[in-house]
């Protein structure tokens, strides 16, 4: 018969005030198997803990029940105490007689009765506990960062600078993300490229960072500390080591397609460098545009390339890597223009989205920094900016606020005025959200110094008439109808999770919210952790963010990843599911219900991956044959607890 010790805490009067602790102690002393039962004013105090240690030694206790506050508070304390007493820490269980008893009842007699039942049932449980040791897992001290935008870059650099190897995977031919497309950034108006390119270069040069552009994560398996990833490296058909960037190939390439970097405001060749500061600075042959990789069909670039850098036979490569942590920074895209036909986007050349306008303002842009209408290259004198395009519109579009549009629209208006001094900027808005350091002042400045005209209301109609774009709207403040003959309209489009984010989330088994952004583990307390341990989130992949927020979260994610990578080994709670092979018939119902894919079928029986198992016990409730149960909360233990709880 196991020897159990019971320790009842008064918690000052918190417990003793409503529970007759003396009576509880004497009642428990009568319980079969209980060889020691005492109460003390503060069990968690040093003297209190010493009582436990003393009793364990003197009474040769096999296990211990501490009746006190919620296990969320002192379970660890008392398990360590028991350990110092010479017991396995899992031979200690907490009976919660404070939060779940003394604090919620007034009638002392009844509260005492209840406390006795709670403790008795805990005794029944602990007597059947297994001694367990935490499961230890070795850690692969290497990280994978998915996405080469500012968030990915920041996270990769923080990790690498902390001395960990990093694989940075970017889908497109160059890193830089959307930030590299911007001209200036709010509220300081410093040049986006100027502050980003140094980081890009640092990435490309960093000895700890393996940069894989034009690549995609294909499959992720394994678990925290030990992920196995398959990365698909798409062929560029140009060997960067041979290429001397002479640019002859683009000259001869007969194909012209819209240039993603300028969002279609300019064109590019089938063989191209995305933009001058691209990292890596090398050519990519876009097979979706190139006439079928057939020298017969074309092959001009191949012929002119003296460096013989072009290789039509280049094949896709699958690279397999092992990493200990993963940071997902898959970023955002703008809301699909097709869905914005109501604002004439894509119909009228001079209706642009925010990014296109950034390109127009950018010194490296299609107009070399002059703001000219795409249609006739004339300088627009009246420009209408419209906020919340696709955002905050639950009926038709996105319910959420894209957060950054207010600020970049101000910036756009301001930049416009700086380029076109005699021009007029109108901004249609629902309201202005300028929370953030220096943001509100920035808005003020736009209105006061640059005379930007804010119109509170929605635009009802946009249409072309005699070379002008007519904008009809209502000023809900004055209630007046407004009609503007604009030369250009700029839409602040909603931010969406980047294309392919959903597919990626599936590969990584990450949860997504209703809008398709990746879900964090806890909205308040675990904002950079994903629901899967060992995977972290950074940047706009998790929710719309501006640059400083994205960078901050990236560094946060890196720090979180380091908490794993800095360990030799990780430890995992050993209260996991255990299979009784004698009873298992291999029906696989537990395999279906396991939220962590921790159970698998192996020749007619199931087996549990103890590292993946979180011990939720859904498998054991599903199993018809009691063939699988969670250690230290087995059906037998619950059965006995039920009996004790009912006074039996």
């Amino acid at each position, binding site marked *: 018969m196991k020897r159990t010790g019971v320790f009842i805490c008064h918690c000052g009067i918190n417990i003793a005030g409503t529970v007759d602790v003396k009576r509880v102690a004497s009642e428990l002393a009568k319980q079969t198997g209980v060889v020691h039962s005492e109460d003390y004013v503060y069990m968690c105090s040093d003297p209190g803990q010493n009582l436990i240690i003393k009793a364990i030694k003197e009474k040769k206790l096999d296990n211990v029940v501490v009746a006190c506050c*919620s*296990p*969320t508070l002192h379970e660890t304390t008392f398990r360590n105490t028991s350990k110092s007493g010479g017991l396995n820490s899992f031979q200690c269980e907490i009976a*919660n007689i*404070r*939060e*779940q*008893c003394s*604090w*919620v*009842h*007034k*009638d002392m007699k*009844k*509260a005492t*009765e*209840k406390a006795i*039942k*709670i403790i008795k*049932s805990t005794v029944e449980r602990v007597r059947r506990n297994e001694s367990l040791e935490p499961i230890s897992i070795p850690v692969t001290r290497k990280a994978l960062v998915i996405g080469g935008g500012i968030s990915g870059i920041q996270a990769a650099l923080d990790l690498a600078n902390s001395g960990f190897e990093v694989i940075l995977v970017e889908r497109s031919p160059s890193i830089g993300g959307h930030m590299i497309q911007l001209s200036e950034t709010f509220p300081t108006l410093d040049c986006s490229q100027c502050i980003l390119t140094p980081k890009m270069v640092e990435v490309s040069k960093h000895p700890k960072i393996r940069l894989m552009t034009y690549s995609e994560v294909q499959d992720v398996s394994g678990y925290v500390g030990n992920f196995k990833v398959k990365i698909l490296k798409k062929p560029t058909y140009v060997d960067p080591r041979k290429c001397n960037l002479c640019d002859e190939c683009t000259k001869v390439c007969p194909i012209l397609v819209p240039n993603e970097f300028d969002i279609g405001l300019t064109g590019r060749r089938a063989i191209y460098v995305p933009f001058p500061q691209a990292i890596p600075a090398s050519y990519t042959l876009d097979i979706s545009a190139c006439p079928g990789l057939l020298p017969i069909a074309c092959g001009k670039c191949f012929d002119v390339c003296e460096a013989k850098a072009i290789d039509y036979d280049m094949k896709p490569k699958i690279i397999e890597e092992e990493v200990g942590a993963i940071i997902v920074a898959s970023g955002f895209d703008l809301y699909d223009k097709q869905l914005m036909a109501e604002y004439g986007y894509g119909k009228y050349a001079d209706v642009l989205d925010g990014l296109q306008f950034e390109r127009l303002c950018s010194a490296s842009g299609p107009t070399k920094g002059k703001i000219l209408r795409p249609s006739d290259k004339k300088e627009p004198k009246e420009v209408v900016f419209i906020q919340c395009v696709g955002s905050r519109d639950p009926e038709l579009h996105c319910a959420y606020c894209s957060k950054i549009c207010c600020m970049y629209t101000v910036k756009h208006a301001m930049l416009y005025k700086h380029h076109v001094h005699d021009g007029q900027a109108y901004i249609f808005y629902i309201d202005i959200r300028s929370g953030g350091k220096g943001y509100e002042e920035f808005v003020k400045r736009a209105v006061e110094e640059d005379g930007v005209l804010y119109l509170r209301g929605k635009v009802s109609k946009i249409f072309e008439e005699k070379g002008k774009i007519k904008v009809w709207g209502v000023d809900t403040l004055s209630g007046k109808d407004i009609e503007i003959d604009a030369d250009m309209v700029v839409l602040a489009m909603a931010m969406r999770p980047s294309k392919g984010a959903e597919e990626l989330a599936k590969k990584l088994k990450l*949860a997504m919210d209703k809008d398709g952004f990746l879900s964090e583990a806890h909205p308040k307390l675990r904002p950079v952790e994903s*629901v899967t341990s060992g995977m972290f989130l950074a940047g706009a992949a998790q929710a719309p963010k501006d640059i400083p927020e994205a960078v901050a979260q990236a560094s946060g994610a890196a720090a979180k990843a380091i908490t794993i990578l800095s360990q030799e080994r990780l430890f995992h709670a050993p209260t996991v599911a255990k299979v009784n092979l004698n009873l298992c018939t291999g029906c696989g119902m537990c395999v279906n*219900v396991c*939220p*962590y894919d921790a159970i698998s079928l192996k020749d007619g029986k199931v087996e549990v991956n103890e590292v993946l198992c*979180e*011990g*939720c*016990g*859904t498998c*054991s*409730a*599903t199993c018809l044959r009691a063939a699988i149960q*969670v250690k230290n*909360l087995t*059906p037998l233990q*619950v*059965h006995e*607890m*039920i*009996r004790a*709880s*009912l*006074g*039996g």
Partner: protein
Amino acid sequence: MAEEFEPKIVAFLCKWCSSAGSDLAGVSRMEYPPNVVPITVMCSGSVSPLYIFSAFNRGADGVLVSGCHPGDCHYIKGNYYARRRIALVKKLLEYVGLEPERFRMSWVSAAEGTKYTQIIKDFVKEIKPLGPQKKLRRD
């Protein structure tokens, strides 16, 4: 005169939401009847129908199973399986003639101390008039 009937109730609370919720009720010093003895399990998904039958067989006048709200399960989806399993158990118990009031399932989040308190109050209030549960009790 005879003492008023005090129902014996067992409550299976999931550790992360409902048990935490009842802790919050305690921290906030809310008051509810002492008839319920909680048994904290890892997840509502781990509550086997046998636990419920056994509780009634051992003389429970009422049984409560409480878990995280859909979507909030600490184990992602354990409570969805619980919802399905418990629905069948409830139907069966009522089909064999047990009073519906005696078996209850609820969603209580870690923030819903008030809701937990209210549930216990209502539950006890609903069971009292029914008197002791003799149908499934062994004696």
